[in-house]
């Protein structure tokens, strides 16, 4: 049965949910306060690298990330097909470089539990490491090589998603200003500041760092808040072969010839400006990883607001008292990576289908107000 779906938020999560729901035969209307992909999504470095980034032991979040990584090859093909647009999707693999022998134990711990999930990572050093990534500093004594990790050019990916949605018939309304949800006689309506009202069978909340405001209408706590991530890029530099991680940040060469480096995190409310401190810190560290950056200065600097949550897990799923409301927010540093799986979960929740991974841990009602 065709459902009328209202999606609030035109970031990568809202667009992915729109893309998937519309493809499955529903009629989607997407509502965006400013412009699609204008916040964290467009600012992202597009790392698809859960094996390097997750230090923890296996949990539902790891499974969610891994599933999404595995969905990406097919998913990105579909987006390109429907959008008739291309964007960079690069299966470069990644190297997690370490400077101390004492880091080997940590890599071994990670490798051993990830192996049980079929992750084909390996520690490489010496000549092999040098051959794989000749530009790396000699102070990096070894690296964890994760051949399955990839990256995507996020600004183009988001544009393609938006185009694919439009071409599939999603009705996109942007520049609406701050949206509100009103409840009248048990019926939920989304209201724009100019008075326009939108109605649907289901409302999907994909408002990223702007999600705490829904506490006003729903009787739950949604502890989602912005963490600023500052990024910079160099040009005219020999590209690296892999995504390179260290304890302090990452570097990744993009197909357009730039080298993107992140991220300096800080707490600055909704301010998306870059700071000298944030960028200088990256520059200084980057030179320790890639000596070729010695005389280089970044040509481009920017920042995005990552929607962080109180326990580090996103909020995905239906509200029990408002089964017509589906949350899909709080993806923190992993919005791009988690976009395919989140799109599919939203569509499954909409249709009452089972999900490919457990989502109980991401229950949007799990937080209580003390």
């Amino acid at each position: 049965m065709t459902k009328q779906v209202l999606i609030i938020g035109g970031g990568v999560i809202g667009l992915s949910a729109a893309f998937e729901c519309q493809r499955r035969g529903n009629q989607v209307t997407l509502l965006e306060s400013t412009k699609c992909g204008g916040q964290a999504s467009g600012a992202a470095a597009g790392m698809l690298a859960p094996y390097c980034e997750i230090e923890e032991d296996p949990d539902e979040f790891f499974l969610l990330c891994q599933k999404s990584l595995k969905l990406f090859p097919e998913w990105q093909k579909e987006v390109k097909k429907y959008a008739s647009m291309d964007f960079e999707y690069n299966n470069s693999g990644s190297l997690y470089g370490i400077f101390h022998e004492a880091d080997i134990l940590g890599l071994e711990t990670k490798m051993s539990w990830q192996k049980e999930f079929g992750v084909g990572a390996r520690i490489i050093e010496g000549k092999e490491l040098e051959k794989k990534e000749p530009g790396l500093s000699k102070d990096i004594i070894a690296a964890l090589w994760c051949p399955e990790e990839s990256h995507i050019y996020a600004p183009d990916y988001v544009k393609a998603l938006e185009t694919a949605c439009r071409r599939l018939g999603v009705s996109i309304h942007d520049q609406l200003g701050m949206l509100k949800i009103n409840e009248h006689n048990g019926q939920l309506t989304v209201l724009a500041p100019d008075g326009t009202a939108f109605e649907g069978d289901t409302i999907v909340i994909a408002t990223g760092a702007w999600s705490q405001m829904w506490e006003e209408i729903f009787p739950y706590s949604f502890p989602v808040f912005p963490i600023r991530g500052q990024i910079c890029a160099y040009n005219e530099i020999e590209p690296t072969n892999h995504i390179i991680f260290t304890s302090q940040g990452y570097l990744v060469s993009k197909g357009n010839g730039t080298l993107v480096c992140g991220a300096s995190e800080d707490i600055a409310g909704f301010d998306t400006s870059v700071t000298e401190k944030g960028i200088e810190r990256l520059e200084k560290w980057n030179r320790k990883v890639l000596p070729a950056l010695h005389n280089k200065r970044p040509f481009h600097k920017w920042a995005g607001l990552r929607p962080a949550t109180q326990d580090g897990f996103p909020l995905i799923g239906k509200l029990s008292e408002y089964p017509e409301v589906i949350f899909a927010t709080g993806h923190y540093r992993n919005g791009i990576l988690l976009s395919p799986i989140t799109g599919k979960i939203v569509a499954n929740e909409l249709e009452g289908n089972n999900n490919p991974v457990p989502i109980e841990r991401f229950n949007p009602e799990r937080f209580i107000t003390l």
Partner: protein
Amino acid sequence: MQKNLVIAGHELKSRLFLGTGRYPNPYIQNKAIEASETEVLTFAIRRVNLQDPHEDSILQHVGGRYFQFLPNTSGAKNAEEAIRIARLAKASGISDWIKVEISKNEKTLLPDPIETLKATEVLAKEGFVVLPYISDDPVICKKLEEAGAAAVMPGGSPIGTGLGILNPYNISLIVEELNVPVIVDAGLGSAADVTQAMELGADGVLLNTAIAKAKDPIAMAHSIKHAIQAGRLSYLAGRIPKKKYATASSPISSGI
């Protein structure tokens, strides 16, 4: 008036030592540290940008407040490695306190007592304030004290397991036999575990995962702070002996 904890002449108002790893994000990390009222922060030396600690991905967020840093040698597989990274940390000016942590097994991360003793001896002689992380064995704990440890940190259970104190008897023996402070480190999962450690007479606790991975790390930090206080007071107040049968709490023959 309760006495404060003193380690190597340094007086600490809080008996909580807190790890800086595994927090979901810097905002929660800061708020949790603040709520815990800890004065001692521990972190792995290998993970830190030693040249510019104030630019480090984790330490930069705790700047602006005073903390006694307790860098640890986690990841070191033997005494030699631990000594080497301890010296790096000291040379960087971060701290001359060092938590010696030496493990070989990547699954249990249990401390290697022989290598820990070796490293403690060497580093104490070099003037470090050494706090070794060690198994809950009273004999090795005493040897560490003799080797010059400023405090000894027996584990309740393996790191990050949240299994609590697996051998309370041993912890109480360690408390009884040592003259230096005993800080129960590793494996504590909740306020109850922390209270138990303090009731056993520990001088403090060190934890990380119990707070960082809680659903609400800030609330858990508050809870741990109170648990330390509750356990410490209960220990000082002196618990009643356990008996098999009931004793009426309102005596029949009250002294009128």
